[in-house]
């Protein structure tokens, strides 16, 4: 086997490992929610792992990311401590946001914020990018449902006018809440808005981490060079319901882990070993859930009621 083939396989294995880690974490969260041991309105990102891992693998430390309402994968892929994220979902004082934020309102250093309002982080990302250091970039994730908000169009227009270094990344799973894209808009793909606003735009199969990375690298180079914003539409599947606990059906096809595993098997990795990795990751995530529920302190109303303001007048 040539050096470059080995190297490619190692990179793919690393990305696969990352995707597996995200998947296992959310499967453990889903399990905790089913058992009513984790509360909250959970929108999982199962099915979007290749986008999260692909995008984050292209970022520099000074780059910033704005997430949306399926944020867990983005926060984990950016290197946040899984224990702090799990503790936040479990309502613990030791959580990433001391239990005040919860699943849809995670905040951290590199992934600045998530949101419970569809489209709500897009203008914020544009403003952040407007004052970012030259050469750095801001990634703004959104779903295809957000493309029908005023916030999306106002943000695309403002970013194009100001030439701010933003990479808009659409995770298009074809569903906006409980109805299909066709019921939300007469516009086909989100990528078409790039033309309208004069923004370089690409679309990729978002279940293929290699394709995601190639597109992100190409567009981020334009963004970093000062050319203004770019738009990337990643087609993915929503492999879970809109929220955990909903009864409606969801897609079973388009699992990015399968895509990656087929490629690894073709590169000579033993399928049995891959199955064992999946199981080991899940067991580790379930152990993390148990440990967080057992050991992390519950957020208490008596702890720091002054959090409403940074400086109480």
């Amino acid at each position, binding site marked *: 086997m040539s050096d470059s083939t080995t190297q490619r396989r190692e990179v793919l294995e690393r990305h696969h490992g990352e995707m597996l880690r995200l998947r296992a974490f959310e499967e453990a969260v889903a399990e905790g929610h089913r058992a009513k041991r984790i509360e909250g309105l959970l929108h999982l990102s199962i099915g979007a792992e290749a986008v999260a891992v692909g995008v984050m693998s292209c970022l520099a430390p000074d780059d910033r990311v704005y997430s949306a309402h399926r944020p867990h994968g983005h926060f984990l892929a950016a290197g946040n401590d899984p224990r702090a994220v799990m503790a936040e979902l479990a309502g613990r004082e030791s959580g990433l946001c001391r239990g005040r934020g919860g699943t849809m309102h995670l905040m951290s250093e590199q992934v600045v914020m998530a949101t419970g309002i569809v489209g709500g982080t897009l203008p914020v990302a544009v403003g952040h990018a407007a004052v970012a250091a030259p050469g750095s970039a801001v990634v703004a994730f959104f779903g295809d449902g957000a493309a029908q908000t005023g916030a999306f169009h*106002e943000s695309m227009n403002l970013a194009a006018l100001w030439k701010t270094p933003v990479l808009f990344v659409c995770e298009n799973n074809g569903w906006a809440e409980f109805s299909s894209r066709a019921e939300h808009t007469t516009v086909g793909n989100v990528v078409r808005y790039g033309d309208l606003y004069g923004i370089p735009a690409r679309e990729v199969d978002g279940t293929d981490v290699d394709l995601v990375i190639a597109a992100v690298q190409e567009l981020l180079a334009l963004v970093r060079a000062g050319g203004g914003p770019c738009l990337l539409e990643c087609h993915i599947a929503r492999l879970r319901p809109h929220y955990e606990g909903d009864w409606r059906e969801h897609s079973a096809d388009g699992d990015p882990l399968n895509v990656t595993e087929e490629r690894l098997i073709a590169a000579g990795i033993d399928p049995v070993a891959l199955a064992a990795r999946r199981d080991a990751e899940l067991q580790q995530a379930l152990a993390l859930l148990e440990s967080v529920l057992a050991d992390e302190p519950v957020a208490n109303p008596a702890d720091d009621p002054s959090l*409403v*303001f940074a400086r109480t007048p």
Partner: protein
Amino acid sequence: MSTGAGDNLVQAARNALNAAMVADERVIVVGEDVAEGGPFALTKGLVERHGAARVRNTPISEGAFMGAGVGMALAGARPFVDIMFNDFITAASDQLFNNAAKIHFMSGGRYSVPLTVWTLAGAGTRWGAHHSQHLDGWLAQVPGLKVLAPCTPAMASASVRAALEDPDPVVLLVDRELLYSRQGLAGDNGDPWSPRIVAGGSDLTLATSGRLVHTALAASAQSGFSVEVIDLQRLAPLAIEAIVTSVEKTNRLLIVHDEASSGSFASAVAAAVYERAFWALDAPVGRLTAPATPVPAAARLEDAYMVDAAKVTAAIRALMG
């Protein structure tokens, strides 16, 4: 840029903004036509002095540029966002209420949002229901927002300075009617965050803000009673202590406020005073506001809608029995 004791309110605010931009590179002005000076010349001359990167024109996209202000604040800048009329906050309310106001709390204290929002309010121009209302009660209701309502050039200047130095989102809710006023008051060198007594009295406490501070002073003098007039200055978070202290002395309270009566800021003040000083009251708390209707456009209708000195005098007399 000239600066002087004779400045009107908008000149004083502009000078304070310019001084802050000179002193602190992080201050950035964002809004519609700000590089053109804005409709009321608030930002006149700033782009020439500080450049287009720090005086940023925006399209008519209040949601986007309020949100951009939040993002700039999160990135370490000190944005000053001009929302031409407070009526337009409706179009930016997701960004102001769900992001700016909540981020410090939701992040567990990791982030704060040092965002200043300058916006005009108030009727009297015949401009109708979309350029004339007062959203005091709405803004004051949202935990995490600070709201200042300066009523003199000196306090407008102090408020701009204070807001830009503050780590939290601050809305400067300015009465349009006062923009070109040069009227100062004793105590103008004080703290913009605290209520201040602008006239001492023993019969009745009158709590108000903005242009109605001046109206209330004139009406009190006409009323024949000894009225203690409090300029609230800070509407949110509510500074109730100064009102309670005064009511414990006068035993009567009249709240005079420019806003629709429904769900009003005045109602929140009344409820807080009932909770804190019920046994000190000799009469029910009085509230004088506009009626619970949109602001009408026609001259006679709008005049009838607005609080004026005659209504304040009548309300004082009614409350004194």
